[in-house]
């Protein structure tokens, strides 16, 4: 569903993403791990079509800048930026109208209830706390019923209820055949449910790790530190 081929992104002389190739199939939960500055957010923004890059990115077989690809895509950004002058309900209405969604109201209500936002429908974007904004951002990304969802640090700022609901929503999306690419530093939050993990270091994918590849007594955290810390020890820096 999400297919990245030989993708390179430069900021001037800095190579933020170096020849990245990855793919996430339908019903698969892919986790993007890496230390700060590894290039995870750049990769995510490039896949979502927010940055220019060399290489190819397709969503459901469509080039990522096409309307067909955008219709399949849901994106939860690192910073939940809302429109300060729109209410919570209007954010969802705007998404519904802009995406030309029919009969969206029930689904919107359901999402708002799930993330405990149903009593905040009339609150303006600027009146919400960081965590609330993150919840609205998640609702906006899920409303169009995307088949590929990309999330950048989605659990940051959420309260325990929000974290539980989002983790459940992620599982439901995966079970419904949706492809998920999630970048996170909270390894324990994906430990139980990941299918494939891409560990990035300095703009490159250092290791692709499938659940079946690791030993029964090994955790994802062990794999992560073996790659990243092993790398930094040998690094001349």
């Amino acid at each position: 569903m999400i297919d990245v081929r030989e993708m390179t992104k430069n900021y001037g002389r800095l190579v933020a993403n170096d020849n990245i190739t990855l793919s996430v199939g339908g019903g698969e939960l892919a986790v993007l791990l890496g230390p700060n500055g590894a290039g995870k957010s750049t990769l995510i923004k490039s896949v979502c079509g927010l940055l220019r890059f060399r290489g190819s990115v397709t969503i459901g077989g469509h080039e990522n800048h096409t309307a067909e690809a955008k219709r399949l895509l849901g994106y939860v950004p690192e910073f939940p930026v809302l429109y300060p002058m729109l209410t919570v309900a209007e954010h969802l209405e705007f998404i519904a109208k802009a995406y030309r969604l029919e009969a969206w109201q029930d689904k919107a209500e359901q999402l708002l209830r799930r993330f405990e936002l149903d009593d905040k429908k009339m609150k303006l974007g600027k009146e919400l706390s960081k965590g609330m904004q993150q919840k609205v951002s998640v609702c906006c990304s899920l409303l169009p019923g995307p088949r590929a969802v990309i999330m950048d640090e989605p659990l940051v700022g959420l309260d325990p209820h929000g974290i539980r609901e989002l983790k459940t929503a992620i599982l439901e999306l995966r079970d419904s055949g949706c492809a998920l690419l999630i970048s996170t530093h909270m390894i324990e939050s994906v430990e139980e449910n990941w299918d494939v993990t891409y560990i990035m270091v300095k703009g490159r994918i250092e290791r692709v790790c499938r659940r079946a590849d690791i030993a029964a007594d090994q955790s994802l955290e062990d794999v992560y530190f073996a790659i990243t810390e092993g790398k930094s020890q040998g690094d001349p820096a």
Partner: protein
Amino acid sequence: MSSLVFLLVRSAKNSFLELLRKPGKLILWSLVLLGIGGIFVLSLFTGESAENLLDPAWLKGILFLLVAFFMAAAIRKGLSNGDVIFEMSDVNLLFVSPVSSRLILLYGILRMAKMAFLAGFFILFQSNSLRSGFGLGFDAVLLVLLGFILAVSLLQILSLLIYSLTNGNPARKRSVRLLATAIFLPLAATIGVQFAKTGDPLLALENALGSPFLTWTPVAGWASEGVAALIAGDAAGGLLFLGLLALSGALLILYIALSNPDYYEDVLVATETAFEKKRVIAEGQIGTEASSSKKVKVVKTGIGGWGAKAIFYKHMRESFRSQRLGLWGWPSLLLVAGAAVTSLFLGGKGGEGGKLLVLLQILMWAQIFLIGTGRGLKELYLHYIYLIPESSFRKIVWSNLEIAFKVLVETLAVFGVAGLIMKEPLLLIAAAIAAYTLFSFLLLGVNYLSLRWTGTNISAGLLVFIYIFAVILILLPGLVAAVVIGSRFGDVGVVIGLGILALWELIAALVCFALSRGILHRCDMPSVKTGNQV
């Protein structure tokens, strides 16, 4: 003390090294310095004829107004959050360190003086205008800059003091407001009396400029009189008034340091508010609405439109919610009022359209910067517009319809009112409206083209520079053609010239939009570099 000196020296050194590492910034600063040098050299060759020179009292008046504007802003800040003299890093690292709070205050004030110097940088560009308008040299420009820096530094300290004295005390806030208004009352009364005597607003202002009520108005009067005296060669008068500024500043610092060594709480709110604003901007909220504390009442709700059209309806909902007049708030009313006042000063005799052209020229310069206030360009800083599954062209068109509509109505009002005051013919007013509206359309096109061409991967300052340069370059052929062809047609030449300019603007704008086609997927989503790690 050594740690603070280390901070100051190391910050200056690192800023310089960063300049060398970032070619964009280096080019921008080189261009600014070259510009100042160029204008200085130009001012040496600018001839001034004694009969065309303005009375230096007007320079005093301009400086008075400028400082009074900063004064109003400083008092306003003092009554809300206080001025920002520290960074968040100072709060997190310095405030908790065992360094004397008084020395830290001194460090903050020193850094603030640097900001005042940078704020006054634009004065250095005025040497040519001062030469041709008042017959003054570069030394006078430096004196104006000195007076401005002293006044702004004093105002920043004053703002801090006002906050510290009035925070959480409405009665004191009221007193400060009353006092701030009372300071200007004698001058306002003088202008009123002069107007009653002469019946001529310009003459009344001119007479008031020589009044002691203007000279002794705190800060603005002292700064303008001090600079005017030094320029006129009256060293004693100059030193007296500029000395008064420096002395007041020193006394205020002394008062803050001695009376309130625990001032951290007083500066914390302003520092945190400024930091939060920068953070919000860096995350993509480049408008002021997100960080504004203004209470907004939600009455009507809902978004109209379907597909890309929903962006336009969203903009309308946001605008009407943010201000009662919707697209046309106070800035629009001020624009129309300002144009009307300018028209009154330019005179009501009409003529060959020259006066309307002066107004058009002023408004076109202002529009270069005002066009960026539209929601369409701001939309580019958020991810939503990129992800909406519609064609890039449709999204850009619907996203900019709000500013196009706003500009059209504003233009009709501005030139309608100005044309009536100037008693200009209807055809000329219509030609000016067309030239101005299409100029705004061209500016939008150039904005997109600048973003498309640079890929947004440059500093905001350099982007603005490229944008202004591109506007001048693109407009120039149309302007030359308008002047050359228009000058051949006698009385109707101005209308024909404006028509040609409008046509050129339309063609150039269409070319710009065509060249910036696909901006939503051919350049990086821009972000504002606030200079802070947030």
